[in-house]
């Protein structure tokens, strides 16, 4: 790997300063959601540049070079994903934008769509041009009503301005964009379930293979990208792939919008280069822990990612480092939990989410989440047994890797990781019939006496 | 020789003064052990609902094919047993019964037990087919019957023996999923024909 050191050295001069904001650059500008304001701040210039100076295939190469990876959760290289589309296909090809952001702890796409919908629309047009798609769909989570309306309006404005339609900016490229409001199901954030939902069917994940790149929406080759991924495209087109790739780490390039939530002083979305350490995020950007408490656990990538202990505070937030620590960066929804939080209670809350959002297609997820919740509920209520803890782990083992789609695996991660890190706390619930910390700790005597009888 | 005769006679003399082992039935009746297997009784719950749900398991377990049941559905107006199902017809043919008690073992609700009722003689065969009305406990007199004598809990480590891997009830691999029974081996040619007929068929097809 002689190259890598070379790249490191090449990277030294940062073209846009140490802390660039590729996505959120103009988010504070009032009225940036209006096309006039957006254009006044350089909006749609990147599109014009992309259409004029790049052939579609060159654009794919450019994105590959930028090192942009999917921001939805899996972190798959975007340019590579595009190149999987078959060259020839009898069916029309489609681009679907996954705006069904429902991962607990994640709220970046919502902000992008609400604050600067034109950024997304511009990204969609660039991506469609690169993938030679003539019909793109933006699937917006149903609950995000404002985001959906904003995107709808932005598309309308872009059509009126001639950025969408026939022969865009004289390039000969045609595109139509349809905005679709989901009906409220977490599973529709899974790409194949999103396609089913778009087709008007129940949101059930599809059998793979065939993968959507080959047989996707209406059986046509389909590329599905996250909102944040596409929102990064205008910047890449404008500043060039090298400028984008100059940030981040070796394999995780560019910036991310981190969704910081939990017991910090200033929760919110913070755009920063990949590889930022957790401590910097919490201390510098998030303004430290609320009430000066200590960090107990961190969930680095939305509730589907296993939680990490306080010892991992210096972990750099990039795909590889987080994976090496036994979790995943996922959607970069960083949830910080302080030391006054009952971890069993937190786990119960997350398990309930997966029980309620399981689509019910496959057995382990449908029945397993139902069972897990009842067990954790019993433990949290102080009625559990010590054997329940191992039973939980065994149920998770029976679910992990055996469900139809990743949702089932995700449902186990909070339980497995919390038992791994905080087994004592579970045992405390069993033995003392009360929480170790937090408000539940004080009920100890009452229930203990009840049990003694 | 004479020695042996004396020996035998001694045995006789020894037993002569003992109490007889026989009783003079019917004036006198023997005290029966609690697990004695006599005629069947159908039990009720305390609330007078019948325990029997008409599941046919006793009939299925019966090696003598002595039990005939027809089941029916409980309705709000006519509730006979708890749940959905009850036995509308429950006949035990005591001429066939071998009093093995398998029915009692098979019953999932403790509805049928064999009791100490053994005076079962009759001059008419029909009398010995007992119907549900005859087998059933009178309302208000619910008991568990001989179940109490049998139901010492099994030791914890007892495992239920599993039936063989292939086909439990009907010899066909897992029935509802066995779509594609067309390639099962042929059924016997004439399921209910007499043997002569079977031979004739073979002869005819040879011809």
């Amino acid at each position, binding site marked *: 790997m002689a190259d890598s050191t070379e790249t490191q050295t090449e990277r030294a001069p940062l073209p846009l300063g140490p802390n660039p904001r590729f996505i959120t650059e103009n988010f504070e500008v009032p009225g940036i959601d209006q096309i006039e304001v957006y254009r006044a701040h350089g909006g749609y210039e990147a599109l014009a540049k992309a259409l004029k100076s790049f052939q579609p295939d060159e654009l794919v190469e450019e994105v590959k070079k930028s090192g942009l990876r999917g921001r939805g959760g899996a972190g798959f290289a975007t340019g590579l994903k595009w190149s999987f589309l078959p060259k020839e296909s009898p069916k029309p090809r489609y681009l679907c934008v996954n705006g069904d952001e429902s991962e607990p702890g994640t709220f970046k796409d919502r902000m992008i769509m609400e604050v600067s919908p034109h950024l997304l629309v511009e990204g969609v047009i660039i991506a469609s041009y690169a993938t030679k798609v003539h019909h793109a769909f933006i699937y917006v989570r149903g609950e995000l009503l404002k985001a959906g309306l904003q995107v709808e309006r932005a598309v309308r404005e872009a059509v009126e301005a001639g950025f969408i339609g026939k022969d865009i900016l004289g390039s000969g490229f045609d595109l139509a964009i349809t905005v679709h409001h989901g009906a409220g199901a977490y599973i529709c954030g899974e790409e194949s379930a999103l396609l089913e939902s778009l087709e008007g069917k129940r949101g059930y994940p599809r*059998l793979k293979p065939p993968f959507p790149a080959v047989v996707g929406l209406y059986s046509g080759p389909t590329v599905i990208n996250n909102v944040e991924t596409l929102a990064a495209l205008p910047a890449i087109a404008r500043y060039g792939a090298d400028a984008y790739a100059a940030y981040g780490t070796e394999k995780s390039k560019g910036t991310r919008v981190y969704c910081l939530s939990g017991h910090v002083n200033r929760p919110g979305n913070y755009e920063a280069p990949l590889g930022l350490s957790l401590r910097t995020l919490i201390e510098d950007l998030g303004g430290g822990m609320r009430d000066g408490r200590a960090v107990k656990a961190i969930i680095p990538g939305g509730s589907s990612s296993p939680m990490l202990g306080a010892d991992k505070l210096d972990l750099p937030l990039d795909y590889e480092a987080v994976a090496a620590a036994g979790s995943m960066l996922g959607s970069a929804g960083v949830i910080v939990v302080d030391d006054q939080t009952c971890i069993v209670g937190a786990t119960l809350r997350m398990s309930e989410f997966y*029980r309620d*959002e*399981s*689509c*019910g*297609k*496959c*057995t*382990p997820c*449908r*029945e397993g*989440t*139902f*069972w897990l919740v*009842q*067990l954790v509920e019993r433990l949290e209520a102080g009625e559990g047994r010590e054997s329940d803890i191992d039973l939980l782990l065994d149920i998770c083992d*029976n*679910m992990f*890797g*055996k*469900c139809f789609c990743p949702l089932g695996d995700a449902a186990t991660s909070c339980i497995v990781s919390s038992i791994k890190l905080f087994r004592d706390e579970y045992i405390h619930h069993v033995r003392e019939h009360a929480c170790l910390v937090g408000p539940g700790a004080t009920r100890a005597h009452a229930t203990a006496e009840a049990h003694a009888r | 020789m004479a020695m042996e005769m004396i020996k035998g006679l001694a045995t006789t003399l020894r037993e002569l003064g003992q109490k007889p082992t026989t009783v003079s039935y019917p004036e006198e009746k023997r005290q029966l052990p609690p697990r004695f297997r006599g005629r069947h009784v159908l039990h009720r719950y305390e609330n007078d609902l019948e325990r029997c*749900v*008409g*599941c*046919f398991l006793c*009939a*299925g377990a019966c090696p003598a094919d002595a039990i005939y049941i027809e*089941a*029916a*559905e409980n309705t709000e107006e006519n509730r006979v047993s708890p749940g*959905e*199902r009850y036995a509308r017809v429950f006949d035990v043919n005591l001429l066939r019964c071998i009093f093995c008690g398998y029915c009692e073992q098979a019953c999932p*609700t403790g509805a049928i037990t064999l009791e100490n009722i053994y005076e079962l003689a009759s001059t008419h065969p029909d009398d010995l087919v007992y119907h549900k009305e005859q087998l059933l406990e009178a309302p208000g007199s619910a008991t568990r019957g001989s179940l109490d004598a049998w139901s010492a809990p099994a030791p914890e480590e007892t495992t*239920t023996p599993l039936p063989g*891997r292939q086909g*439990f*009830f*009907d010899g066909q*691999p*897992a*029935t*509802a*999923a066995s*779509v*594609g*029974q*067309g390639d*099962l081996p*042929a*059924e016997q*040619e*004439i*399921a*209910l024909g007499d043997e002569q*007929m079977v031979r004739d*068929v073979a002869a*005819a*097809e040879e*011809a």
Partner: protein
Amino acid sequence: MAEQVEELVNLTIDGRPVSVPKGSVVWAAARKLGIEIPIYCYHPKMDPLGACRMCFVQVEKMPKLATACTTQVAEGMVVITDSPQVKKARQGTLEFLLINHPLDCPICDKGGECDLQDFTLRYGPGASRFDLSKRHFQKPIPVNEQILLDRERCIACQRCVRFCQDVAMEDGLVMQERGFRTEVGVEPSAPFDSIFSGNVVEMCPVGALTAKSYRFVARPWELKRGATVCGQCAVGCNVLADVRVDKLLRQYSRTNDDIDDGFLCDRGRWNTDLANSPERLRQPLIRRDGKLQSATWDEAIALVARSLGEIAQRDGGEAVGGIGSTHTTNEEAYLFQKLLRVGLGTNNVDHFHGRFPQGDNDAQPWVWSDSIAGLERASHIVLLGADPYLRQPIIDLRIRKAIRRGARVWVVSPAANRLDRLAAGAIRYQAGQVGAVARALLQVTLSERLTRGAFAEQRQASLAERLAGLADATPEAVSAAAGCDAEALRTLAREIAGAKGAVILYDEMATREATGETLAADALDLALLTDNFGRAGAGVGPLLEDNNSLGARDMGLLPGSLPGYRAVDDEQARAELSAAWGVRTPEAAGLDYDAMLAGGVKALYVLGANPATHLSEEGRAALAGLEFLVVQDLFLTETAKLAAVVLPAVSYTEKDGTFTNTERCVQVVRKAMLELPGARADWQILRDVANALGLGWTYSNSAQILAEIGRTTPIYAGVSRHGLGQTGARWPLAPGATEADGQRTLSGSPFLTWEMLAQGVAKGRGSDQLALSAGRGEQA
């Protein structure tokens, strides 16, 4: 049939090598080896779903366990089905399934044939670790007239839902709610009223969907499951007739891929009246003092034989006639015509059937030249006046499968049809005008010179004449008379002529409509002239009415034809038959159905038919006024009420024999239950009557009669129960190789070619008459 050779893939399962076609799933490969992999959501007749997570296997080089139902085989694949990981995964899935499944097996109708029970016993954990509260629903709710749904028992495998949507392609069951609240249900606006609904009960791997008619009536282990053939319509689906003691409770599919594809219609599944009805006749009746009174069999048989014999003696055989049945077995139809021809010396034998054009004689195999399975290969399917959904439902289901494979279906019918929604086109005409529509299609074909293929080439000369005969059948003229769209007729004719393979099906009874007389001939010509004939996926023919409509014709229940469509005046046939029967049959053709009922005979033997329903008041009076009328039937029908003697017969589940379905498939019918006490099988009654007439028949079972049919009927040459096997064979039959145990196999013909039909085409066919006028069906 020349199939292209399928590419085989070699793999190893549990150390045993196996080769299966490319594209198969691992489950199918394991099944071929006899290795059971438990499944719930997978169903071999539907696309894989992968939802139940039951069929885990370990595949070498795959990081996770794979589901056998979704994993396609690959060359060199190594599969292990019983590793500790697989066992644990299966136990885990079963434990999951059981946490919300009520343990009410003792009262569940599925108990004993339940996959959840069976697989739990074989692969499941011994005990559950779930000690919390289960999900509860209201116990059974009806989803339609015949089916109950117990949502607590449902394991959400979606088999039923996928059947409704993907196989039956109709409204019906859908999934509702999500997660652990998932349930199956029916949308109020889209009722589940399909005639195929019963299949979901059979498919359901648990007791969630159960049949009202089967509710609590039996447990599977006490059923006698007779492997027989359904007798409800002309499709001849293979069934297991499930009998408890003396009642037929239901019929389950016995999957014959070439006929029923593993599905049954609700009529076949649940209509058990033929066997169970309390109205069934239980003893012979003889009219005494003007009233039908019970009698013994000996009395009744003697009276029938004496009366028929005397009248035949006195007035000649022509005074006696017989009306046969489209329901009885081939053996019985054969014996019936033999009794009349040999015992009473008359050709007056017929049955109620469609109108098929008659040339020199009516000995014409008007049959569907292709097969049900062939529909899947058709590019076009044209239904002329036929509504298989109502009459031959399983053919309708096969047409839906063909639609999924891209076939264009044209529904030409007088009324709305369930297939309209899926059809490429629908043509409505005024009732009775189907013949005119067929003529118009032929007219367009000829006038627009759309004919193609060798058959048309060879007959170029006569085409003009044929067209001239259709001068009054231009689409415009027909559309005016029949009220249909002329342009649609033209479009359809062009599509047929341009089709890769078109199957044209007309309803047998449509030929009895006002203009139906020429329907059969015109449809045949249409297919022949457009080269839609003589291969799988192309053909023409009637959809017949009853389970043995075709067998009745095959066996010679026709006044002009001997068994196997040989003319009554065919010298060779008569010579052969006299050698077999010992008597020469009469040479002159007999009276047909209508002529016999119009007073042509003095005595009439009606077997399994009900002509009174086709007659006016006067006609019935005439029937009642016959010198002697004997009726042999299951019920006291309108005709039987007029009879002098009524003989009680048994239904198809109570006897052995063979049926020939509408696509020429001869299948073995097996006795599934004992005869109703007092009733007898038709062949036994016929034998006894014949013996009372002094004929000395020695048949002691139906197999002997079948063997005789195999010797005397060329298209059934060499037929035997063993040769027909489990799935039957399509005539013309030919004896095949001899197996190791000395039994002969049979070979059939999946489709008819023009040459097969035309062999021995009769003398004197007018050149304007293209349609076959006679075919003896003698086979090489």
